[in-house]
């Protein structure tokens, strides 16, 4: 794409204010790879792989932690039932991520690496991504014996009480709340960003909003539990959320 400007040393300008992928983007990415490689090399030279305690079938380690990349999921087990935390949420994440190219078919800002043009899409994605890392960090560094919360300066050998006073919304509160959350979210988004349903079409719009609301439901549930001691928002004979 730069052939027509061969022989010029100054930065070639393509359409309004753009620069070519090579070398500007490729070089940036190459430098990022270089920095990461240098850090990894220094780390591997300075530090041996840790030797963990010998496996002992007679002794379960406490806390038993998943590999770091799964600790975020394990952390979710505090707030959700295993079936939801372990199957439901990961499935939604994977399916949702896979669906993005089919949901967001806008041609705007193609070829541009810019935040301004896609503030909402990138913003929501980054928030979800940060949430994932925050969960990993909490699970990896701030969880002690019996998966109790310990600050880094607290002594793990001092046991913490596992007693927690938790309560659940009765179904006649929980169900309307959930319905209101999704219906309200759909309506609010339509009013706030009227161009959104227009651009996406009704079906895709609803799917996008529902997936986004589902993502935000996770931190909302966490906050409810931490601040108000809410165990379940909706209790049904088949599943609890």
């Amino acid at each position, binding site marked *: 794409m730069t052939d027509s400007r061969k022989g010029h040393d100054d930065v070639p300008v393509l359409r309004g204010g753009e620069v070519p992928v090579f070398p500007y983007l490729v070089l940036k990415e190459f*430098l990022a790879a270089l920095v990461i490689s240098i850090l990894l090399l220094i780390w591997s030279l300075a530090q041996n792989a840790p030797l963990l305690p010998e496996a002992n079938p007679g002794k379960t380690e406490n806390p038993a932690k998943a590999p770091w990349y799964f600790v975020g999921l394990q952390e979710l087990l505090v707030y959700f039932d295993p079936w939801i935390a372990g199957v439901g949420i990961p499935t939604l994440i994977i399916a949702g991520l896979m669906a993005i190219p089919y949901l967001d078919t806008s041609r705007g800002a193609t070829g541009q690496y810019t935040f301004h043009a896609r503030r909402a899409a990138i913003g929501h994605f980054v928030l979800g991504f940060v949430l994932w890392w925050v969960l990993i960090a909490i699970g990896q560094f701030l969880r002690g014996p019996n998966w109790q919360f310990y600050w880094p300066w607290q002594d793990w050998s001092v046991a913490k009480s596992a007693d927690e006073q938790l309560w659940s919304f009765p179904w006649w509160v929980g169900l309307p709340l959930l319905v209101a959350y999704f219906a309200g979210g759909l309506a609010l988004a339509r009013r706030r960003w009227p161009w959104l349903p227009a651009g996406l079409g009704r079906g895709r719009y609803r799917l996008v909003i529902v997936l986004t609301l589902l993502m935000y439901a996770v931190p909302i549930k966490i906050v409810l539990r931490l601040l108000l001691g809410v165990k379940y928002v909706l209790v049904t004979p088949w599943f609890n959320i």
Partner: protein
Amino acid sequence: MMRGTPLMRLALAILSPIFLLLCVVAIHSEETRPWMRYQEEFKTLYIDRAAAQLRAAEARQNAAEAARWQRVIAEVSAAPPAIAQTYLEDVKIADRCVTCHQGIDNPLFQDAPQPFRSHSGPLLQQHDPSRFGCTLCHQGQGAATTVEGGHGREANWSSPLLPAAYVQASCARCHGAVHGLRGADGLRRGADLFMEKGCYGCHDVKGITYLPKFGPPLTPLRSKLTDARSWVYAWIKDPQRISPDTLMPHFELDDDAAGKITAFLLTLPPGKAPDRVALDGAAPEDGKRLFTERGCRGCHALTPDEHSVSPRVPHLAGIGSKVTADWLDQWIANPKTYNPDTAMPKVELTPDERRAIVAYLLTLTRAEPLPPAPDLSRFNPQDGKQLIRRYECFGCHAIEGFERTRLSVPDLGEFARKPVAELDFGRTGVPRTKWDWLERKLREPRAYESEKIQLLMPTLSLTADERHALITYVLAFDVPTLPVRYTVPATPAQRALREQTWMVAHLNCNGCHRLDGHEPHLARSIERKNLIPPSLEGVGARLQGQYMYQFLLEPKAVRPWLQMRMPVFGFTEAQARALVEGFGAATGVSNPYTYVAKEAIAQEHFQRGVRRFRHYKCVQCHPTSIDQGLPEGVDPEDLSINLMLAKTRLRPEWIKDFLARPKQIAGPQTRMPAVFYTVEGTPKVERPVDDIADITTYMMGMVDPPEVTLQAEEDAKKAAQEQQVDWSAVEY
């Protein structure tokens, strides 16, 4: 060609060389391992030393040896760097220690600096490194090839290198017995101390079972003590203040706890009160004399400046302020009626003698009065009972109501395999190793206490040496994990030796008898050395097993000139046998029992023995009969044991040895002259070997007391002739 912005180019110019350099460093550090440097150093050292040997061989003009060293130098110079490994398939041990410790089995490196020095002692001769590897004994991480890794000084490596000081702990991994095991003295001492210090009272250890309670029973205290309240309170509060030598540990109890325990102990039923004893007419000065003469001082100390034979034996200074006359009289008369497990033997005394001793002991009162005890009525005895349960006083003392209470002291049974991470170091800065943990624990048992856990182990008085031995022993506590090919079960001799060691310590044999190089404790208070009971040094080689066994069960006077008699310990048959076999094993006698068949005694040797016996005038010193009493006008110091006893008492091998080398066997102070050889071993007579053998034969078959007069000899000859009947001339 576009080259990006200047900033990008600058970053690329800086980061690329750094990345390249790091790659080179990473590859280099993988390629040159620390062991390679050690192998190069070793190679230089080896060639140097071999060259020195070569020069020495050439100087001696020993061509063969010079050629051999030449070959060694050539081989060593050509050897490429390589990891050396011993692999033991059956225990899955891969030891690469010899990768750096290359001189381990090479005598050239006895004084070389580490890691090249050869293994100390003769251990490698018995433990072929190719069969046992290194980490089986030394621990550490055999497969690692760095200094820190190989020595196991890595987080979570459960068995770091045992310091040389404690490495004997590993002997117990294969050897079922440490008694009679060369090179395991520290471990053996620890095993003995574990019993002698009473650790077994609270800590259950496999192999130590059915031992009596370590301390005296606490049940009938009120009939034993004159002022039970003050005495028990003061004792519980600080035993060492009352008796500085005592083994009773200091529990660091506060006034309330001591008061509660005292209140509980005094509520226990007093049991049957001892009979009243009237001391009028009993002379304390007689008692004082008897106390020494009958050997009581062999075990007990009387004045504050001396010590009892072992800290377990009560120091009698202040005894007059402690116990009642009635109790003391009953105790001396028969200690086992009060405490069936006591080590105190029953000494044969007439009631008068006993009363004199009691009168004397009651004069030994405390210089310093007992500290006052608080009013006990404000304490609930049940609280005291709870405290006894908590501190597990019943581990060492029999206490009524606790007969079936189980100990809950931590099990030491598998201490060797306990990960160091499971040990609580509290807030101390003790280095995180098991041995450092144990050292501090034994020195200051409650050092690791924190708000999380209250520790109850009392303070013990142990010397640094004793702690060291105990640490070695505790580090050896393990379940057997090695295949049967590695295990060396205890031999019967070793088991007997172990039991004998315990009994000798428990019963304080060293109080009266010389033992293991220790003078009898009694020797401090008795001047005439021949009044001291015989040495037990090498007794297993000297005495016949049957004789020792009988004697232990039912002591009979052998040396009539001695005032003191072997007291009655009340051994069971099993205990007597263990002592006999243990004493035998201690002197390398595998079967101490002796039988000399009378039919097997060759007559000509026997007769020659009789003549030689007379020739050397043995009877001059050795009385021939104890039934007739001591000969008149003879200093008992010049007397020796009745030789008529020899055939049932002494082992013939020992008699021969003793006749040949009396000074070496019985010590230079013996009155037995060196008849057959000089002290240097030169023969003094014509046929020493035959003389000794024949005299021994005679002694083992001696029937009548040997006569010294020629007349008797002629009578015997005549009688023998008369017996020769010409059967052809007799009608029958």
